[in-house]
């Protein structure tokens, strides 16, 4: 059980969020959220639909305007930066919608990942997903759901990100692909921190170092020890 031995958490703080408040127009979504992520952690966010998990990731990635609060990465302030700037700093957001650029080929999708980062080493990222190697010339619109998710993650990996924010990666995917993704996440964790929004509890239990539980826009629990995560304590927050 490599991820749960507590080693990874001790390597210093990568991302810190304090006092985060976010609203969509009139309706407030996040209330005073505080969290931190260590440099080699896998952190899972769980909670019901509408608890504000995706909003949290999008806020960190710079897609939403914050009402108040601070977000820092290695003590560098992220608030007010454009989202492409944050992505360039190595914080990549992988959205939930599994929408690849369907009119572009797989290779062109990867090219766009390389555009900003100047990292053209596609072999490295497709090594995680050998299936993609055979599909390079195919239009991404013709990929299956699992292949799209792989492509989105592969695309985000270009440029060696130090933090990956992955939104519901396994939603609607076949079990075999989920277990493949689980191995990939473990592998990725050697070089980057991961924040994963996930409803799939077995996966969360298997890979997460820590779990934040969100309810109605607030963090209601932080489960840091392996035992309580594994004991499915977080189930009560779903």
């Amino acid at each position, binding site marked *: 059980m490599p991820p749960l031995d507590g080693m990874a958490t001790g390597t210093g703080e990568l991302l810190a969020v304090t006092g985060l408040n976010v609203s969509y127009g009139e309706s407030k979504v996040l209330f005073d959220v505080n969290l931190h992520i260590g440099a080699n952690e896998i952190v899972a966010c769980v909670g019901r639909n509408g608890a504000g998990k995706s909003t949290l990731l999008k806020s960190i*990635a710079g*897609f939403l305007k914050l009402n108040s609060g601070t977000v820092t990465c290695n003590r560098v302030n992220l608030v007010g930066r*454009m*989202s*492409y*700037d944050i*992505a*360039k700093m190595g914080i*990549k*957001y*992988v*959205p939930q919608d599994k*929408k690849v*650029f*369907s*009119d*572009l080929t797989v290779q*062109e*999708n990867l*090219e*766009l*990942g390389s*555009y*900003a*980062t100047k990292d053209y080493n596609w072999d490295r990222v497709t090594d995680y997903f050998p299936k993609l190697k055979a599909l390079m010339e195919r239009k991404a619109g013709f990929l299956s759901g699992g292949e799209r998710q792989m492509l989105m993650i592969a*695309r*985000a990996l270009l*440029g060696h990100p130090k933090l990956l924010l992955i939104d519901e990666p396994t939603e609607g995917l076949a079990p075999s692909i989920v277990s493949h993704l689980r191995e990939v996440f473990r592998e990725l964790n050697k070089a980057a921190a991961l924040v994963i929004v996930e409803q799939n509890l077995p996966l969360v239990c298997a890979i997460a170092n820590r779990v934040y539980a969100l309810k109605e826009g607030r963090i209601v629990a932080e489960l840091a020890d392996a035992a309580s995560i594994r004991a499915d304590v977080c189930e009560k927050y779903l």
Partner: protein
Amino acid sequence: MSAQLLTSGVIFGLSIGSIFFLMAIGLSLCFGLMRIISLDQLLYYSVGAYLTYSLTLVTGNVWLGVLGGVVVAGIVSFAVERLIFRRIYERELTFSMITSFGVLIGGIGVIKFFWGVVPRPVPVPLMAQIDIIGTEVPVYRLIVVAIAFLVYAGIWLFLNRTITGKAIRAGIENVEHVEGLGINVSRLFTITFIIAGALSGLAGGLHAPLIMVDPSMGLEVLAFVFMVVIIGGLGSIKGTLISAFIVGQVVSLGSLIYAPLAQMAPFAIMLLILLVKPTGLYGSPLLKR
């Protein structure tokens, strides 16, 4: 109808369709990527035409004038994008439509200020005629058609072979994901807007020798450009090309049969197509952002 009349009618339709295409492509690209309706493209068309007129007066060379028109139209569109559109990308579609109409009307005022209201003639750069199946056809009109196809090929290459073009295509599908990959989307927007403005300027410059240049010339082609964009489908380059030539032929051949048809027939066709397919021939259903 005689074959000669028909041939010259078809050539006329092709050339006018080319002008429509060059203008509509800007509207279409801006809608596709930025989700704005940029009515001010019609201003850049007038700017291109007026610059062609003035530079032709100064240098005596129409082509130099057209080139100047393209450059200045590009510069003006760059300024407008930076000063105005930058602030309204996030807003609803109607917002950009109203604002750009303001830019168009205001720009017409500026043109009146500099050039007055008297229509100006621009000489045709090539007076030569060429024989096509027994009909004398002005070479200039053929050149206009050739330029339109060159532009289409250029746009196609740009969108499919360059990384910036690929990013624009990706952005047409989903701008947020492009941004999430670390690509500066607002720069893409600026590039697209300048391309659109410059092409509208090119349309104006090429059209200038065929018509009289006057301040409200943009408003005169407005309805046709709209019909082209609507028939082709907002956001589709291929649809724009096809519908531009449809509208061009309908205008030209229609007026051969019965003069008022030139204006009415494209409108009827547009209504028909909308009845069958409310998003135009190649338009995609509205992608909500």
